[in-house]
Structure formats: structure tokens, C-alpha cells
């Protein structure tokens, strides 16, 4: 087990390095002089020189990279050009909404996806099974922003039940907080729930054919306790991987969802920073989100090995 974790940690090094190089390269992909692009047309030569100096653009590229990457490893992403504060501060101010939105969406994914998949498998080929499959397939085809707009149209514009956007911090007013997060979290979690439901369904169908399930049914245990006590536990192991990888879709989707529902999170900051050409903020936010994704996936993989001894034996 320790050897496996060590090997995974070593494999992480090139990934982080490539992510770093890509994010670093962003500023140099801009057409022309990055400093001129960031400051716009009205910049004086002095402004340009100052910014070039601040960003270290006069150094050779490898020196710039080492300098920048060294900062990143200390969670120092430089200063924002627009907000006038360190990028790390700006990100920390906006991390709560993004983190909570993604967490709630993941809860929705599990609460909807697992039961839907289980019912679908137990009632294989029934009407319920078909409905779950159709909803799951359509869910994957609805872009988050269109689903969000549809839900706003129904629950905010027509019914006036929920706000159409905005954000209330949880420590300020929990009730308002949950009301403001209900639509965005559902919107974000819905398509991943469909994916999870399809996976749980197929892995449940596999498990239900196993000898130990047949034995349990044959000795007269009720279906319900065979499903929850024997089958589900094993069927959920592969689901763990899907939950882990769909975090990428959730974190990416959060950028879009925050924009639809005007939630002041990291994703919305990225989108706003594009128009402001605030590259240090874009770099910092993209780096932070990618790192979160990489680390959570590592945790999921380790958890997977921990839960399923068969994988552990193969890995050691």
C-alpha cells in the first residue's frame, strides 16, 4: 500500500510540471507584447516598462518559469493587475462559493445517481429502467448553462420560488444560502448524476449475477436486504472512480454555472478576468483548480485501492 502511494506521488511530479508549463505559457501565447496586451492602448512606455519589470518579462524564459513556478509552489501567484491585491488573496475570498457549489453538486450527483442506477438495475428492462436511461442520456446532452436558464425560467421567473441568481454566504444566513444554491447545485450535478446512474446500473447488473447474490437469494433473504447488504457495496466500488473523475466536469462546469447564476466564485472571477486581461488572476485560478482536481483524483485512487483488496493485491 505504501509503495503504491509512493509510486502515485512520484507520477504526480511530471503532471504538476506539465500543468505548470501550460499555465505559464498562457501569458506568452498572447499575440504581441504581453505587457501591452494587458495594459491596453492607453499605456505609457513607463507603465509598460514597470509592468514588464513586475512580471519579470525581461528575463530569459527559463528564468521566468523557474521564478514563477517557485512562487506557485509557495502558493504565491503574483499580484492582480485589476483588483490591486495578491492573486492568492483574491482567490481565497472567492473559494467558499466554488467549493460549496461543487460539493453540493456532487451530493446531488450521488443522491440522484446511485438510487436511480440501483432501481434501474433491480427492475431491469422495466418502464422505470427505461425512464432512467432516457433521462440520463438527455441529461448528458443538456449543456449546464441551458439547463440553468431553463430552471431560472421556471422556478424564478414563472413561479418566483427561488432567486434567479446571487449568493448568500452560509455563515450569514443559512436558509437564504441554501435557497440561493439549490438551482445552481442541481444544474451542475444533473448531468454527472446521469453518468453515475448508468454506471451504477451496469455494475449492479454485473454484481446481481454473482454466485454470492444468487446464494443469498436462494437461502430466502428478501431482495431488499440482498441489494443493500450484499450487492450495492460491491457495485459502488467502480462508482467511486466515476465520482472522482466527474469532479473535473464539476469544477469546469462551476465556471459556467457561476456565470449563469451570478455567484461570486473563482470561476466567475476567471471569466471576468478575461475581459480585464488580468492574466496573473487567470493563471492563479486555473492552476489552483487544476491542482485541486489532480489531488482529489489521487485521493480517490488511493481510497479505491484501500477499499477494494483485489486492486491492492494487483498493485503491490
Amino acid at each position, binding site marked *: 500500500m505504501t509503495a503504491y502511494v509512493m509510486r502515485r506521488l512520484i507520477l504526480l511530479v511530471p*503532471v504538476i510540471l506539465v*500543468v505548470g508549463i501550460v499555465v505559464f505559457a498562457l501569458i506568452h501565447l498572447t499575440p504581441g507584447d504581453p505587457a501591452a496586451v494587458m495594459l491596453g492602448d492607453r499605456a505609457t512606455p513607463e507603465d509598460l516598462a514597470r509592468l514588464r519589470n513586475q512580471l519579470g518579462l525581461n528575463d530569459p524564459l527559463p528564468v521566468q518559469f523557474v521564478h514563477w513556478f517557485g512562487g506557485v509552489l509557495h502558493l504565491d501567484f503574483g499580484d492582480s493587475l485589476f483588483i490591486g491585491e495578491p492573486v492568492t488573496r483574491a482567490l481565497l475570498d472567492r473559494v467558499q462559493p466554488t467549493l460549496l457549489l461543487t460539493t453540493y453538486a456532487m451530493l446531488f450527483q450521488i443522491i440522484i445517481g446511485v438510487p436511480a442506477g440501483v432501481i434501474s438495475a433491480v427492475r431491469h428492462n422495466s418502464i422505470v429502467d427505461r425512464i432512467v436511461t432516457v433521462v440520463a*442520456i438527455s441529461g448528458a446532452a*443538456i449543456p*449546464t448553462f441551458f439547463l440553468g436558464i431553463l430552471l431560472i425560467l421556471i422556478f424564478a421567473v414563472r413561479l418566483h420560488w427561488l432567486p434567479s441568481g446571487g449568493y448568500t454566504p452560509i455563515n450569514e444566513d443559512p436558509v437564504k444560502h441554501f435557497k440561493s444554491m439549490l438551482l445552481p447545485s442541481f444544474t451542475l450535478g444533473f448531468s454527472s448524476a446521469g453518468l453515475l446512474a448508468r454506471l451504477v446500473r451496469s455494475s449492479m447488473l454485473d454484481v446481481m449475477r454473482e454466485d454470492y447474490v444468487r446464494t443469498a437469494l436462494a437461502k430466502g433473504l428478501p431482495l431488499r436486504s440482498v441489494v443493500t447488504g450484499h450487492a450495492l457495496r460491491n457495485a459502488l466500488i467502480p462508482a467511486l472512480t466515476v465520482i472522482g473523475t466527474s469532479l473535473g466536469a464539476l469544477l469546469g462546469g462551476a465556471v459556467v454555472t457561476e456565470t*449563469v447564476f451570478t455567484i461570486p466564485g473563482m470561476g466567475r472571477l476567471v471569466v471576468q*478576468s*478575461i475581459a480585464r486581461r488580468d492574466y496573473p488572476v487567470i493563471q492563479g485560478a486555473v492552476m489552483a483548480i487544476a491542482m485541486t482536481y489532480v489531488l482529489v483524483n489521487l485521493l480517490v485512487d488511493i481510497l479505491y485501492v484501500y477499499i477494494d483488496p483485489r486492486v491492492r493485491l494487483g498493485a503491490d
Partner: protein
Amino acid sequence: MVATTSPVAESFALAEGVRPQRRAQWLHSLTGNPVTLVAGVIISLITLAAIFAPLLSSHSPTFLDPGIRLQGPSDSFLFGTDDGGRDVFTRVIYGGRVSLLIGVGVTLASAVAGSLLGLLSGYYPRADSLIMRTMDGLMAFPSILLAIAIMASLGPSATNVFISLAVVYTPTVARLVRSTTLVTKQQPYVESARSIGMSDKAILLKYIFPNGISPLIVQCTFVVAYAIISEASLSFLGAGVNPETPTWGNMLRDGQRVLQRAWWLSMFPGIALVLTVLSLNLLGDGLRDALDPRARKR
């Protein structure tokens, strides 16, 4: 299997002889599935509407006419008009051009680049770790975030959307092609080809690549769908195609601003988007079942 001829001849027969028969089988299996057939028809209709957009509508997709702004769907304006008085139906069918063009273009580009990288990486162990570590690094980003980041640097335009999405989807194809290459490389007919002195290039193009083409085609239909959603998302965020160009994403962004008063502005481009992506996904499922019967879902 009974070996009646030499092993070399037999393995060549295996590689080439069975193909025509298999093709007939999958075509039959594909057209026999009503869901796939309907999905195929819908995709064809949307494509035809996009190509022949000027014949289907006499309105201009960009001409502003404030006199008729925000009119609901009616006989003269099937999908209503937007806040600039432009016909929404016309803009939806013209918008399909951008979506489909970018979807197909991105898929072709990432299929070519991904196949090349995947073949090299699967065939030459020396190239493997450099290529695959780079691909792993690119896949460490949530895909839409990487696309947004690249667009932030390049600036909004259709060409840049194409470039950024091609970069985003190449690693998925590369991984797939690498895995089929690793398997095919071990086959006796590849060894035979190598032993009679065929060059690596010929082996890769003649034996290894064609063997991985079925899963690649299936993957490509899904990439078209992902790319179309991503293009629309980028445009919706204002980081995609030029905001003046009619695209489904741009229309949804404009529509959300007047959602309280004019639902049709968001609804119709959204439905077009969902129908396209849904049909592509169903088509992909059907193709997978037809080309790889083992993966057929229960």
C-alpha cells in the same frame, strides 16, 4: 483455428480477409436500430438546414430592425425576434453552421493529431513516456477550463476556438489510439510483417492504425458532441466566437439578459443545441454497438 497454411500467410489473411464481411454486418446492425436511425436523420436534417440556411429563410441573420424587436413566435417570425429585431429562426439555422463546422473541424484535427501521437507513443516505448506525460498534464485540467484559459490568451474568434478545443480533445484520442496500438503491436501478423522486413511506417499505417479505427470512429462522434457543447459554453461566457456572429452559445448569452421578457430567445437555440448533441451521442452509442458487439449494452 486449424493451421492449413503457413503462420505468416494465415496472419495476413486474418488482417485483410475478414474485413468486407464484417463491414456488411455492422452496417446491417446500425440501420436495424431505430434509435440510431432517428438520431442519424435528425443530424442530417440539422446539417442540411445549416448548409442551405439562405434557402430556408429570406431574413438576414444580422440585419438590425429595432421596429420589430422582441416579438414572440408568430407566423411571420416562427421563433420570434430578438432585442435587435433579428429573426431568431434565421439566426438558429445560421448558428448551426458555426457549431457544426467547429464540432467537425475540432474532431478531425484532434483525430489526426491524437492518432499520430497515440501511434508513436504505443509503438515506440522511448517516445511513450514524454508524450503520455504531456497528455496526462493536459488532461489534468477540467476540459472547459483549459479551453477558457487558452481563449483568454488567444482572444475571441472562431479560429481560436478551433485551436483551443483541438488542444483540449487531442489527449483523449491519443490515449485511445495508444491503447489499441499496444494491443495490436503484439499480434502475430504484426510480428510477421516485421519479420519480412516491412518498415515501421508501413506497419503502423497498414496494420496497426486500421485495427484501431472502429473505437476511434466511435470516440470521434462523442468528440463532435463535446466540442459543440464546449464551443457553445465558450461563446456563452463571452470567450468564444466573436459576439456579433450568430452562434447558439452567443444567442443564449444574449437571451439570458432578457429572459424575464422573452423566453424564446433562449429556448430555440438551446433546443437546437440539445437536439444536435443528443443525436450525436445516440449515434455514437449505436455505432459502438454495431462496431463492437462485445461492448453492447444490456
